[in-house]
């Protein structure tokens, strides 16, 4: 396809503007970073902070142990994410059930989501992790099991509400069309409403996953030897806090792919909805 000289000139102009934006962005980032570094190093306590938090030798020494710890976090994360997703769909579906028979179910589910969305996670961890084993009813199970359970209980309360919002966001005419075809309530939910709800809430779900990704570090309060606990052990050996920073960075590295994926997906959804417009 041939392009007119006018359009070529416009494209050259736009490309020039784009190049200029890139250079301005790089320059301002460098200046900002330099200001932060210089500013920090001028503070009176900097030398002490640097040796207690940014000790490269300590980091190297603690690395294998903390890495082993984060592997536990990853397993807990993946297990709880799958279970949370499953339970959330069930809880949200139960909350939308109509009919008098289901009143106790609805009440129970409402009470559950109210309670566990309000309760701080750390307290749920204590209650589940120390309270349930103290009943003496269950066999001895590792701390990470109870930690996973506490995460599931808390996060299901949140994520089920996200699902419920998604279900309610599907236009009522979809339910009407499905019922008009003779689909039952359950079939309508499963085949028509849930698939659409899931698409609507995917960015919110991904955000909750990112949040879960760092909250798995809290299972350390139950004694599970995860990245945080491993860092604590290393720290207690050397009285240097660098292992904590190391563990923290590992959590960030773990989270970044998901954060980027969430941003990309949200942007794509937005682009799709604004198709045909540039502003």
């Amino acid at each position, binding site marked *: 396809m041939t392009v007119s000289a006018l359009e070529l000139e416009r494209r050259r102009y736009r490309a020039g503007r784009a190049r200029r934006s890139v250079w301005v962005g790089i320059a301002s980032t460098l200046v900002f970073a330099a200001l932060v570094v210089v500013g920090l190093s001028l503070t009176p306590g900097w030398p002490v902070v640097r040796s207690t938090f940014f000790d490269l030798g300590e980091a190297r020494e603690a690395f294998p142990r903390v890495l082993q710890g984060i592997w536990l976090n990853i397993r807990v994360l993946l297990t709880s994410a799958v279970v949370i997703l499953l339970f959330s769909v069930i809880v949200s579906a139960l909350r939308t059930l109509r009919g008098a028979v289901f009143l106790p179910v609805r009440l129970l589910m409402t009470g559950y989501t109210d309670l566990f969305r309000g309760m701080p996670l750390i307290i749920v961890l204590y209650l589940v992790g120390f309270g349930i084993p103290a009943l003496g009813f269950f066999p001895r199970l590792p701390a990470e099991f109870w930690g996973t359970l506490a995460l599931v209980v808390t996060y299901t309360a949140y994520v089920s509400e996200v699902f419920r919002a998604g279900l309610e966001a599907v236009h009522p*005419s*979809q339910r*009407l*069309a*499905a*019922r*008009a*075809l*003779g*689909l*039952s309530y359950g*079939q309508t939910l499963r*085949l*028509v409403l849930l*698939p*659409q709800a899931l*698409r609507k809430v995917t960015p919110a779900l991904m955000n909750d996953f990112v949040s879960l990704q760092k909250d798995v570090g809290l299972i350390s309060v139950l004694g599970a030897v995860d990245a945080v606990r491993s860092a604590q052990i290393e720290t207690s050996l050397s009285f240097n806090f660098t292992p904590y920073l190391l563990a923290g960075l590992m959590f960030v590295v773990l989270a970044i792919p998901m954060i980027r994926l969430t941003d990309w997906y949200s942007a794509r959804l937005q682009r799709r909805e604004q198709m045909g417009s540039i502003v």
Partner: protein
Amino acid sequence: MSPLLRLEGIRKSFAGQEVLRGVDLDVAEHEVVVLVGASGSGKSTLLRCINLLEQIDDGRIVLAGDDISDPRVDADRVRSRIGVVFQHYNLFPHLRVIDNVTLAARHVHKMGKTDAAGRGLRLLTRIGLADKAREYPDRLSGGQQQRVAIARALATDPALLLLDEITSALDPELVGEVLDLVRSLKEQGATIVMATHEMAFARDVADRVVFLDGGVIVEQGAPDEFFDHPREERTRRFLARLAH
């Protein structure tokens, strides 16, 4: 011969507002009945009541000899015998065209996947959209979407087809393709109750035109008779308004 559908004294109110105030109507098999009337005259409500999407306040609905307004009947079974097409198509946006068409066949009528797909494809061929089977609904024009919605309603071989102002949301140049499809359904012997604002089409395709006003049937008759020699004053006023 007893009618396929019999409505006896149908009443329906919304929040104290009486929308249907005693409607009696018989529809014979293979008959095409067109409901006309101003917006708010109760056409859409009547169609929704027939399909049990709304619960009637009084009266009786009898489909092929069964009283379907009895609360003990299985409403899902009844709805699976009646096809409905809505003004705004209401296709399922997350399903491909072919899956929209075969959804009820597979899950309500428990048809096998290949049987349903074959049947769905034949239906799409009939409406001239076989090449769009793998597309998602948002890639189709309004007219194409509405034709798919009609195919979806036909996929389960319903005894009765309800069409609720199916051309009202379409651009004028797309109305024709949808109405052509309805015309061919009539030729194949479908029983249809439809609400519409397309008077020319009503005259062309209807076996009987029914004029609703204020929640009651004011007048009904063969299309030529109805449009050329309306008996009631209210009908004449309604038709005169349309002429302007």
